[in-house]
Each structure stands twice: as structure tokens, then as C-alpha cells.
């Protein structure tokens, strides 16, 4: 049993994977609790895990935290889907027609390297402090990354797949629909999963600046009162949502693309 845990570059069974994953969390919590009890760090800076859980409950009971979560999740998904529906066609176009790639790639690369937080003041000037500017921040952070990832995913479809389609009599449109998209889809879904994670990163940037709702707003406003347990509870909430979203994507991936399993 113990030896099988250290099998060189071999997979473990699902149950062991799960147990180890949970063990990681438990170890982290234990060390945290020990640190707090030792009294090395003042509780204003590092509250105990129990205090954080207490704060987490309080957030829901006293501050209507659930509605903030709903708002944040909606913002993330709205901006994410807006990125996806524009990035997928453009990414396909870029990888298919060299002229589209030649026009878009240098520009996309330029924008992609602009730090999103630096764009926030500009976006607020343009769109005000309402929902639009928040969506714009999230969109800026994901769209330009996603378009290149989609383009790369489709470029990686083996040339033999395309050429065999041509010699089987498929038109260019049929090759796109019947060969390139199905071939690239597993990698595209992975790209979406990764981009979704970035969307959550930029959510906090968006909600810290001029917002009166959302998880980021809650975290930022409680900071002023040094409510460290609540701040940590807010951060952990994002972690949990992120973890669940990621797992949902992975689950969908293995279900949709079961043919990739050997």
C-alpha cells in the first residue's frame, strides 16, 4: 500500500487521490490552528480557522452574503460568456485564414500584455462605476487571452486530419464543422476552464474599485474595520467557488470526451 503511493510516474486510484487531496487541506488547517494557538501571531492578523468559519456563517446571517455571491458569480459568467462567444469565432478565423491572423495577432498580443488593473481607471472613465465597467474589466482580462488560446488549439489539429478530409471530398466549411472543431474541442474546453480562473482573479480587481456589491466589495469594505476573519472567509469563498467550477469543467470534460481515455 505504502509502496504503491510512490510508484514512479504512475497514476493512483480515484479514492486515494481524493483522500490525499483532503489530507492536504487538513494538514494546512492543522498547521494554521497550531500557529494561532502558539500565540506567535496576533489574532487580528491571523484568526483561528474556527473564527473564520464563525465569520463565514455570520456573513450569511448578518450581511446577506448569498446575494453578493450571486452577483459576483453572475458578473463572472456574463463576462466569461461574452468573451467566449466572440473569441471562439475570431480564434477559428485567425487560425484558418492567414490574413486574419496577420491582422489580429500583433494587436491581440499587444493588448494581452497590458496589465488589466492599469486599465481600470480608463474603463471607469468610459463606462462609469456601474455594471458595465466591471464586465469590461473581466472581459479585457479574459478575451484577449482566450482568442489566442482558441487559435492555438485549432492550429494544433494535425494537418493529416484536414488533408484526409479534403481527399474524402469535404468542402472547407465541412472540414471546419466536421473535423477541425470536433478535433480541437477537448483542448478548447480546457482553455475555457483556465480562462474562467482568470476571470475570478479580475473580479476582485473589478469589485474593489467602486462597487457596492459582490464578494470583492465585501472583502474590501470589511478590511477597513480590520475584520480579518470575515476578510479571510470572503477569500476562501472565492477559492471554494473556483474549486467547484474547475471540478465541474473537469467532470464535463471527462464525460464529453470519454473517447480520450485509453
Amino acid at each position, binding site marked *: 500500500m505504502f509502496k504503491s503511493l510512490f510508484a514512479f510516474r504512475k497514476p493512483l486510484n480515484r479514492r486515494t487521490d481524493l483522500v490525499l487531496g483532503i489530507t492536504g487541506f487538513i494538514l494546512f488547517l492543522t498547521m494554521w490552528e497550531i500557529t494561532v494557538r502558539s500565540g506567535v501571531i496576533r489574532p487580528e492578523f491571523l484568526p483561528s480557522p474556527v473564527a473564520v468559519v464563525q465569520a463565514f456563517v455570520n456573513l450569511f446571517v448578518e450581511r446577506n452574503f448569498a446575494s453578493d455571491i450571486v452577483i459576483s458569480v453572475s458578473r463572472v459568467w456574463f463576462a466569461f460568456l461574452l468573451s467566449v462567444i466572440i473569441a471562439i469565432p475570431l480564434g477559428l478565423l485567425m487560425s484558418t485564414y492567414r490574413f486574419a491572423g496577420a491582422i489580429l495577432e500583433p494587436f491581440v498580443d499587444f493588448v494581452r500584455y497590458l496589465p488589466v488593473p492599469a486599465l481600470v481607471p480608463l474603463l471607469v472613465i468610459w463606462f462609469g462605476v456601474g455594471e458595465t465597467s466591471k464586465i469590461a474589466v473581466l472581459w479585457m482580462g479574459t478575451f484577449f487571452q482566450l482568442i489566442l488560446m482558441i487559435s492555438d488549439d485549432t492550429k494544433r489539429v494535425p494537418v*493529416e486530419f484536414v*488533408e484526409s478530409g*479534403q*481527399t*474524402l471530398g469535404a468542402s472547407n466549411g465541412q472540414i471546419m464543422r466536421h473535423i477541425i472543431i470536433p478535433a480541437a474541442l477537448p483542448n478548447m474546453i480546457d482553455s475555457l476552464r483556465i480562462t474562467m480562473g482568470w476571470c475570478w482573479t479580475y473580479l476582485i480587481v473589478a469589485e474593489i474599485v467602486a462597487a457596492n456589491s459582490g464578494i470583492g466589495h465585501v472583502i474590501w469594505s470589511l478590511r477597513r474595520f480590520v475584520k480579518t476573519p470575515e476578510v479571510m472567509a470572503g477569500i476562501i469563498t472565492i477559492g471554494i467557488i473556483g474549486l467547484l467550477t474547475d471540478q465541474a469543467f473537469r467532470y464535463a470534460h471527462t464525460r464529453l470526451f470519454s473517447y*480520450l481515455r485509453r
Partner: protein
Amino acid sequence: MDNFIQIKDVAKTYWSNDGKIETKVVLPLSMTIGEGEMVMFLGPSGCGKTTLMRIVGGLETPDQGTIHLHGDLLTGPDRRRGMVFQSYSSYPWLTVRDNIKFGTRYRKDISAQEKEEVTDHYLNMVGLKRYADFYTNRISGGMRQRVAIARTLASSPDVLLMDEPFGALDAQTREYLQFQLMDINKAEKKTTIFVTHDVEEAILLANRIVIFSSRPARVVREIKVDDILSIEDRRNGTADMDRFFKLRAEILELIRAEYAHTLEEA
């Protein structure tokens, strides 16, 4: 029909990325291939034999010259010339059967019902009925190549183009598929261009072997294998071994001489 495929003065040059260095891949070259003929393109690696076959397939454009099929001038790729690649080109998101059925997808000459029948016919021909519902990354490399061959045949091309289709397979599988291809060829009499660098494979399968020089490709020698060893004898394993080894030695010598040129150039 002796000039089923007519290759006339075809030449191709590649340029380096900066456009300064030119590499002549195929010199102006003419050749005819008869209907139902199995022609093996043999030559040192990188000699341009694959390029010439890809030009016939419409996947590369020649700088000059023309290809006619049955009197029609050929331009881009289409269903008249089916291609089997060296790498596994079966689609991983489709089952074995659906891969083969994909070959019939763009045919307008047969009904949906006939497409099912054609699919089953080729599924049986390549001996994969038992694996019909398997996805292709759960079957072996040899089986995947059979899927690719069946898929191409299901599209009913006039010409079968095979680019070292057995190159990546182990010796036993390769031999098995070579004999399977001979059976298919007997049943279908499909005009085939088969690119290989394996001399024995060429002798085993060919009606005619075309031996190419090192790059740029020109024809060094054509050998009508049928005149030396009958196809039946080869298929049944009753071929005269002395003749076989003599032919093999002769071809190897030709290729060795050409390969030496490649090294001199480098």
C-alpha cells in the same frame, strides 16, 4: 486504359524562409500510370517521391506541369484521389465504424442505406467488425491504419495514394497488412500509388516499381515486377526466391548509389 493518370512535365521547388535558398524537389518529370495499376514509388528518403504523390493528390501545387486523371485536368484535392497517411489519421472522436462511415459522408452517388452497406462491407474487409464500436485510441496502430484504409476505400476514390502507410508499424503487423492490401487489391483492382523506402515491400506489392534519384527527384529506373515475379506467386508465397533476391539486390544497389549522392551534397 494505359494513361489513366498522366503526369506531364511536373516540377516543384521549395524556397527557404528568407527566399534565398532554392531546393529543387522534383525536376520536370513525366509519367503515366495505367488503370488498376499498383505503382510503388521507391527512393532514398527526402528524394521528393512523397512530394510527387502529394502533387497527384492535389495537396501540393506544382510550379509547372499538369496532372490529368482520365483526361481531366486536376487542380486541388477532391474525392477522386483518396489518401492514406503514414501517421494515424483516424479521427479519435469517432468509433471505428463511424470513422469508416465518414468516408461515405460526402458521396452523392449513393443513398443513405447504401452508405451503411458500404461501411459494413469495408469494416468486414479490413477485419474490424469486432472492434466496430471501439474508439480509435483504444485499438492498436495497425488497426488504426486499417481504419484509415477502409475509410479511404469507402469514399470510393478513382486513385488510392498511400504515403508509407505501414512505415510506423512493427514488422509482423506490416507483413499482415501488406498481404491484406494484396487481397484488397485483388478484389478492387484500385489504381494505387504507394510511396515506400522498403525494397521488399515494393517488390511484394508492385505491378511496377519506379525508382527515384536523390533530390531533385527524377526517374532512375522503372521495373515491371509482374514480368519477373507473377503477382499470384507473390501473393501465395510461391515466388522464385532466387529471382526475388536478385531483384532486391539490384534495386538496393541503385538506391545505395543514389543515397551516396545525398550524403555528398550534404
